[in-house]
């Protein structure tokens, strides 16, 4: 398998890595660059756990060839916290008990971020649609939907969301 030099941006940093033609973005990020926040759930494009943003679009890293990301900006959950601390989504996931075992959480956050970046005032249905490709086996999804809606409200207000303290 031939190799090529992949030039891209990872969480804002310019990079150039030698990648094999058959190497997936998951393999590159998680297993070679130790970006462990990108988690492997199924390696067959069905669970959404490895979701990252490629030029702002949510992508399944496990079925994305790294070589197709030439010149792209790739964002993982490591890029979420800003200078003021946690991203509104991260704070809302904590406040709404949206992370239980935590394994789907980073993929879920990136799917939600892709939505809020283009639609700051999503409806409940739009939130459900945006995370529809991400499987969570713990929460039953309701706390996640509540968290995304609360994060949207908080982001619009320019503040961290108020703690709702839903406990089920």
């Amino acid at each position, binding site marked *: 398998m031939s190799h090529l030099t992949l030039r891209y941006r990872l969480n804002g940093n310019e990079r150039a890595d030698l990648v094999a033609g058959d190497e997936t973005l998951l393999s590159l990020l998680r297993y070679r660059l130790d970006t462990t*926040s990108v988690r492997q759930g199924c390696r067959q494009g069905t669970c959404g756990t490895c979701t990252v943003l490629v030029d702002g679009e949510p992508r399944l890293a496990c079925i994305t060839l790294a070589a197709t990301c030439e010149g792209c900006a790739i964002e993982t959950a490591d890029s979420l*916290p800003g200078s003021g601390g946690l991203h509104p989504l991260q704070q809302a996931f904590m406040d709404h008990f949206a992370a239980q075992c935590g394994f789907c959480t980073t993929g879920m956050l990136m799917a939600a971020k892709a939505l809020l970046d283009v639609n700051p005032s999503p409806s409940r249905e739009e939130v459900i649609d945006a995370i529809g490709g991400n499987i969570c086996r713990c929460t039953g999804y309701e706390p996640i939907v509540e968290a995304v809606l609360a994060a949207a409200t908080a982001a619009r207000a320019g503040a961290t969301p108020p703690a709702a303290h839903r406990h089920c």
Partner: protein
Amino acid sequence: MEFRKDLFASERNEDLNEVGRPTQRQDALGHVTGRSRFYEDHAMPGMLHMKFARSPHHHARIRSMDTAAAARMPGVVRILTADDVPKRVHTLLILIGLGPDDEPPLAFDKVRYRGEPVAAVIAESEPAASAACAAIRIDYEPLPAVFDVEEALASGAPLVNEYHGRNWYDYEGHDYQKIRFGDVEAGFRAADHVIEERYQMTPIEHAPTETGGCIAAPDTAGRYVCYTNTQALFFSLETASRILKMPSNRLHFVGGTVGGGFGGKVDSVHEPLALLGAMLTQRPVRSAYTRAEEMQVSSPRGAERIYIKDGVMNDGRIVARYARIYCDAGAYSRLSPYGAVKAAAHMPGPYYIPNVWVDARCVYTNRTPSSAMRGFGVTGADFALEVQMDKLARLVGADPMEFRIQNAYRDGDMKAHRRVTKNAALIECVQAAARLADWPIGERFQAMSSMRDGGGERARIPATPPPEAPARRVPAAAPEAAQAPLATMPPPAAETRSAATPPPRTPLAGAGRRMSSLLGTRRR
């Protein structure tokens, strides 16, 4: 969330500092920042990967195996077979002091379910390990297989597991776990209506987003470390110690963050063999299920078939229940015999029934071994008996909520498995649920309480016909065994004495106790 402090106020001290108040999870910040470390995040330099050659057959004799070509493939470091495993046959049940050993970590002589591991390849990469697994030549002689619990019990059925000698688990000389309480026949004769229904539940996979796995590695001073996503760290430590015949103080298990378990990560299938690989290669070894293996091979909640025959009076009282439960263990025990005991004890449900007869069998079939999953044993029984409750309510023209309140256990009632009811709360739960659902219930039922009208006559153990002798016990040399002889396989008793296997195990502290004693009593 609503806290009903008015309920059971007399049973509770008002000194609770945490209950009723929100508390942040201690791991939430790690989860939302992606910093929580799961076992795979402990990947090490020089780490090898272990994959398994698995049986394509549901039931087959292994005639021969040739690993020579696989061993020569690029990247292959070591191949493990049953001969490398210090304790060749094991059972998880020993963790609760029970036997018999019935499952090889790597199969020899025979495979008993599709996907059973026969050999393990340890290689420099996962693809190299998988390719070498495919190159292992195994000559199988397919055997008749059985997939249905009742067919497995019929005479002439293929014998699944020689270590039991029959297709069911032996409960202290009985071929089923029994509950005998009162006189069910007299109850049916006195009943206004008698109905019998059949229920069944398929196996259910936990499907955690993180598949099961571990990383084992040599540590210093002859010790080994194992990062694992087991849900039961000390179960897994003890299981590995027994299979490896190595003192547990030479094994350092590190667990903690589990990417979804639900009972599916207690069987300790990865740790012993990954540790064995680390010992034999002196390098870190990772073993992890693919998603396909998680679905096909990891133990599910077992299938169950349940027959319930009930006698009910026109006034709504249930007066007799006769239940037969068939729990499908798959090919090996894992924790299924314990689940079947729970199913038997739970069969009356949270309801007072004066005459109860339950036979719960744990049956071996050629399906994937089943094991723990969120209330296993009880969940299938609950499904069956709550559907039955709706049918009974309809039969006597009762409201389903009122019917449950009427028949609920109250404090002081004797349960069919001889435990006195304490802290009953079903009546209050149904009353609260009815109110929240705007479901009208009669004043008489709204006035009922778990703390009143129980005990007394209901605290008695009713006259119960004497227990049958364990006459239906089938000896190890059952006709089924004779029908499917395995010339290469010694009978179970001989296996435990053979030189290839360890001397008889030292019983645990609880060894020899009755399975039924494991159920315990809820304490405040």
